[in-house]
């Protein structure tokens, strides 16, 4: 009987299990990070004031961001990032002026969130916000002007405290929002609309879209189907990136395969109000079903498929509208199976999706 080994194991696991009792548990508990919203960073607006800010978000009024971090390299805990005071109060303090005779505005915060992305290639904060602007007259009646969509990013430096990066991004957004308010007051967006792509005059805010997409592709030696799901924030820039999860069925002469990719990158460029050019880049890992298994000796490791593909497509996808969208494109496919040569294929693709 291997009781000695058993007891050693038991003691080892007991020590790990009891660590929280010796004070380590505090480190495991998710904490809340408070970041400063620089109220003193008052953009020189002069001729306007924000009189009222309504936070319409369905969340804590101080909420900015939540992300997962690992304690001891393994245990995930949630890190919540908040502002010291309610976000609406911060925004108002920054743009409020008690000067007489200046234009007065109201702001609805429909969406305001900072995503914290960490990958092998770097760390990045991305701010998504949607704000509706109304002009307020002396009788406190308001006239709706339009909606701002922001998508701003800030690269996080490795040694820099994470709160600093959040604060830098908020500062950047504050300055830009102030400038945008002045431009909208002076109707500059009508003169140079390209620079104010993120402002939709007289249009109410729209929420993020949910895409359920199917893409069929075929070339000389292969054909297949992709199923994809992704959420897309409203477009704040003419060029925007999104990522999706994809499950792919592909049929080659010798085998068929099912592959999955969890972070398929989509680079998008809006051509006009109705059309978008997209480039989809996918890295997938799959399993093979060999058609000749009865006659050809395949080894176990040959069931793995490494697949990379790119698809350039032109898509009918009206701005800020939901409904049926579709596109056509060109696909380049590269795949590798252990003991086999890397194979390149070229095909055409047709895609359609319902945009909720």
């Amino acid at each position, binding site marked *: 009987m291997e009781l000695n080994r058993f007891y050693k194991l038991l003691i080892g696991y007991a020590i790990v299990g009891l660590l*929280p009792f010796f004070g380590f548990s505090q480190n495991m508990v998710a904490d809340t990070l408070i970041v400063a919203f620089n109220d003193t960073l008052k953009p020189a607006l002069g001729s306007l004031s924000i009189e009222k800010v309504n936070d319409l978000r369905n969340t804590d009024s101080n909420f900015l961001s939540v992300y997962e971090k690992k304690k001891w390299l393994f245990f995930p805990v949630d890190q919540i990032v908040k502002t010291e005071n309610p976000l609406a109060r911060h925004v108002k303090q920054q743009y409020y002026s008690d000067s007489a005779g200046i234009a007065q505005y109201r702001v609805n915060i429909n969406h305001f969130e900072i995503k914290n992305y960490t990958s092998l290639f770097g760390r990045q904060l991305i701010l998504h916000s949607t704000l509706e602007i109304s002009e307020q007259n002396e009788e406190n009646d308001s006239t709706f002007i339009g909606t701002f969509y922001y998508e701003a990013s800030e690269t996080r430096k490795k040694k820099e405290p994470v709160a600093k990066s959040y604060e830098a991004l908020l500062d950047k957004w504050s300055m830009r929002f102030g400038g945008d308010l002045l431009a909208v007051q002076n109707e500059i967006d009508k003169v140079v609309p390209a620079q104010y792509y993120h402002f939709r005059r007289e249009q109410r805010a729209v929420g993020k879209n949910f895409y359920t997409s199917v893409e069929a592709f075929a070339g000389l030696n292969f054909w297949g189907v992709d199923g994809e799901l992704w959420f897309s924030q409203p477009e704040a820039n003419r060029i925007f990136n999104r990522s999706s999860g994809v*499950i792919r069925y592909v049929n080659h002469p010798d085998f068929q395969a099912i592959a999955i990719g969890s972070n398929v990158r989509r680079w998008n460029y809006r051509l006009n109000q109705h059309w978008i050019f997209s480039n989809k880049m996918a890295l997938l890992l799959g399993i093979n079903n060999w058609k000749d298994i009865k006659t050809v*000796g395949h*080894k*176990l*490791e040959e069931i793995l498929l490494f697949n990379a593909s790119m698809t350039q497509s032109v898509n009918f996808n009206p701005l800020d509208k939901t409904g049926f969208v579709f596109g056509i494109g060109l696909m380049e496919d590269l795949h590798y199976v252990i003991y086999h040569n890397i194979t390149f294929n070229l095909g055409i693709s047709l895609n359609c999706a319902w945009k909720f």
Partner: protein
Amino acid sequence: MPGNFKRTYCLLFGLLFLSITASAQKSTLSGIITDKTTGETLIGATIFIQSEGSGTTTNSNGFFSFPGIKTVNVEVDYSFIGYEPKTENYTFGKGEKKFVEIQLSPSDVEIGQVDVIEQGREQLGDKQVEVSHHTLTPREIQAIPVARNDVFKAMRYMPGMEPAEPFSPLLSVRGSDPGENLIMLDGVTMYNPYHFMSSSGIFNMQTVKNVDMMLGGFGAAYGGRNAAVINISTKDGNNSGLHGEVHPTTSETKVFLEFPVGEKTTMMVAARANYDLIGNFMMYSNNYFYDINLSLTHRFSPRHRFTLKYFGSRDMTNIDFNSIYKYMGNTIGMQDYFDDMSLKWINNWDNNIVTGIWKSVLAHNLFFKAQAYGSFHNADNFTEMVMNVEDVVFDTSTRLKSKVNDWCIKGSLTYKPFLWNEINAGLEYNTYTFANGSEVNAIDYGSAQRSPFQLSAYAEDKLTLGPLQIRGGIRASKFENGNWNWEPRFNAVAQIGDRVKIKAAWGKYNQYIISMNTQEFEFNQFLDYYYPLDNKLPGLSYHYIAGADVTIDRQNTISLDVYYKDIARTYTFDLLIDQFEAFALTDKIVAGSGKSYGMELLWKGRFGKFSGWASYSLSKSTRSFPHIMNGQEYDFDYDRRHSFKAVMNYQATKRISYSASFIAQSGVPRSVENTMQMFYMYEPLTGEMIYSPQYVTAQKNGVRMPWLLYLDFGLQKKVVSGFGKDLSDFFGAAESYLTVNVYNALFFRRNILYYIPAGGLEMLIPMGDNYFPMVSAGYTLKF
């Protein structure tokens, strides 16, 4: 014995008469206590009347009766741990009887937190007097990483309940055969309630309300099995709006919905499909299962409710191992060897049950329950193996068929004439059809059908005499042409102070339907094949149990059970004569005897952010059959001498909980072969004698395998960002959860279950069940 029965009946009728005359003068408060959010009845909720200085609890149907109230104005406290307490005031006229329906609101509980007292929702039996009665709630099962989807795997973590064989969901309770357990779904007896080699149990966990396990010494209300009673209760529906869960993964999708239908009716609908996408796609297999749960409950009034339930499941396993062999052979350079063999499994079985349950409060102290059900099981399992050895082709196939139809009608009355006296009586009638058959190499080895009936009646009386509670009962049963069998049962509980309860139980138990499990000689055949003892004496055992429950504080309890089980008559199949004929209900069974004894220590509770339970069991189980070692006693196959189990949940934050489960137990007793014999047979096609070497041993279960260690980890996390959060927002879900499990963390230490002899006994190859660590992840949308 007959004299004792007459005295018992006289006592029962005397108490009935006394109660009718005495209770007419005083007031009575009776009612039903339910969960305010779901409408489910609460079992074990406390009712305390200040002015009377005494209290009572709700029974297994959520019903309570408080007779003999002397005061006019009474203040009644209703409470149940895990729920907000409630106080109501009533004014009684002389001899007035009031019926009330009380709704309690649940307190907030964090995800993953295991609350020891969250036990009361729908319990089996009477926990006040039962000994060796354990309950698992869905929340507790969620804390077991390896068993989040499977109540049978979860039960392995309770003391006294051990897995029967690797990859098998069967459970041995206190050293008994798995076929000696009565397994019920909502009171309906089920036959082979398992999916094939799946990580998911047959019961969709989203529908499970409670799992009750009575490991011995259970009351007269249950019978027909020697060892234990296991009941899985499913939800009735929710009367507070549409609620549900969706759980999509690449291997399984589950949907669960519960909602009101009008003001008085609730409904629960659940479905699950498992599709083994990888195996079907890669290995040319065709494996799937599905199951469906439906429940409709109509409350005619607070006093009367009717529930209709349906459960259906179907398993299909069609594995052609040729593809796997080709890959394996080519990978390890043994393609020639593997080219010469082929193995095919085609297993196909289904379960269908339908039941209607009527519950009524007939009078202020009389509760009635009636149930009718049909339970149908059908299995058809085929195995074929082809081997080419020295140019001789062995092509062997077996087909085992089994069918069980069980129609039942039963009714029970609970009468509470006094606060200190409760009488239960019931009647049950079953009519069965058992049809079994086998084929070897497409040749019929016999098939047979039997259709016996069983009639049972029981009565029991529970008396509360100060700190002492006594329940005596008797069960009478008759199976087909056999005689009436009488099974007296006795339970007693003494409350010592506020924190200590001493319990004892004794009972006689008969079993009329035995089963044969075949995994020992057909690895893929883990189903039980049922065999009615209509021309044999029933199996017989006597349970002797003593125990103590100690409440350490509000959140921690310790229990100790010591038991001795005298298995006076048990049966085994004499497979050495001809294993396949045995399936066809031939009388190749042999009677023997045995005993099991041991002790179980269980702590269940919560300290700080930790919650869970831990147990230690010491047990011994032996059997003796005349055809095995000339009747010499041997350690039974399911003997597990030492067993330590623990399930622990750590609530790191409100949104994240970590869990771990651990089992360390003595190895399995095995018959390790130490001799080889040659068996010769004539091959008619070639005219030659061919031989087959067989490894044999003279000692049954003479060797014990090394200790078994299992450790699994789990994480449950409320999703607060990313795609999962977006998805739950899009569907308007209340919340969504991510679960991650890591199985077999101790994979580097082999758990040896068998030694397979090879190379002419010069080598024994150890076989285990934990070769690789495994990781699984799941996402759940909760409405």
